[in-house]
């Protein structure tokens, strides 16, 4: 039977912390970009111009039906081969943003559609302009429906950022694999890793809960 010895990991504390930092950085940055992309795709799918609608729907449909790893390899290895070189960091950010943007577009659609159409009629009766209508009638009430699903998506994105380790981006998973091969303490290494990811995702869920509780007060 294997004996557990977590002390073997103590020399690697700073490496692990560094990995957590990189995971956090890549997750936050790509989620911000994914939100922008998702909003554009959502608005594109509802656009009155047919070509815009078609392109947006193709983006959403294609990305939702292929693995993120393929998108990442396409960008990192595929475009790299054609001379368009991305660093592992930017390749990971791009792949995560492109992938999650498609899911967020659906989340935005579901959330904004849940706003009753009576509100839109009321807005036009009150003489609100298109921008005012979007801001006060579509966006603000819609965002309420969206926060929980978007939080889930952010947690998923953070967990999936571990895939960036496959292109040698030094995130938490990458460092764990390195420590594993250096110490051969497989159970300890991946137990600590799983616990850290679990803490990260729980922290995001709790933070979002607090945030939405504050926002629900309007």
């Amino acid at each position: 039977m294997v004996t557990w010895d977590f002390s073997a990991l103590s020399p690697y504390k700073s490496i692990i912390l560094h990995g957590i930092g990189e995971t956090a950085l890549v997750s936050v940055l790509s989620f911000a970009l994914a939100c922008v992309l998702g909003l554009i795709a959502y608005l594109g799918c509802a656009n009155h111009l047919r070509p815009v609608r078609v392109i947006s729907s193709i983006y959403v449909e294609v990305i939702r039906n292929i693995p993120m790893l393929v998108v990442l390899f396409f960008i990192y290895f595929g475009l790299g081969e054609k001379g368009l070189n991305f660093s592992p960091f930017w390749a990971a950010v791009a792949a995560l943003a492109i992938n999650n943007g498609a899911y967020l577009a659906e989340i935005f659609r579901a959330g904004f559609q849940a706003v009753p159409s009576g509100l839109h009629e009321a807005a036009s009766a009150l003489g609100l302009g298109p921008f005012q209508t979007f801001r006060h009638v579509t966006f603000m009430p819609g965002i309420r429906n969206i926060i929980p699903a978007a939080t889930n998506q952010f947690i998923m994105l953070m967990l999936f950022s571990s895939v960036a380790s496959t292109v040698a981006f030094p995130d938490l998973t990458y460092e764990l694999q390195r420590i594993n091969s250096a110490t051969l303490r497989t159970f300890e290494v991946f137990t600590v890793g799983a616990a850290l990811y679990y803490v990260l995702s729980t922290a995001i869920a709790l933070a979002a809960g607090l945030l939405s509780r504050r926002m629900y007060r309007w």
Partner: protein
Amino acid sequence: MSIFHYTDSLLRAAVMTLKLCAFGAVAGTAWGLVVGLLRASSFRPLRWLAALYTSVLRGVPILIVLLFTYYGLPLAMPNLRFSAYICGAIGLTLFVGAYVAEAVRGGLESVPTGQTEAAQALGLSNFQRLRLVMLPQAVRVIVPPWIGILLALVKETSLVSVVGLVELTRAGRVVGQESNNTLAAFALVALVYFVICWPIGQFGRWYEHRLAASGLRTVHEPAVSNLLGEDAEVPTGGAA
């Protein structure tokens, strides 16, 4: 050399991906059903254990689970031989099981309590109540999130390439290197994934449409609650 020269190896790899999907879907669903039913058990420690399991597996990356099974299983059971395929399939099963368990719990909770009371009044045993009353009614609600889980599973099989199994994504990488056309290789690989996933997604849409027509709403009220959104929407596609 043209990319189409490698169609055979890509097809063989696609078969491997489908095998992983089939294993993960069957074993994962069975395991998820067990865990989901344990969450409804009247024995508290079992309920806690099942809740802990789903919560942890849903809160860690699938890649960590796969690395765990790949490096861990041979260490834990040194006298058994584990291929990359088996390690990957077990990792996927454990992961899928957690999501299916969540869907099963949601489905069971959607059955009105009056049904449970009626079953008890009729003198059905716990097992009979589950089999004859609860599950048949829960299934309709379980199917939509289950399809979402299957879609995510197809995409998650790509991660088994990380532990060295030659499935579709890995084959795409190899073919790309050999043909000097990585871009085309991954475009082709993406097309195969799309061809597998798209019909599943369409079926899901059709089914939800039918459910909605029968008056059953399956879109869960999204809500951030205690750890990891216990009641939050079951992600219908994941981020794989």
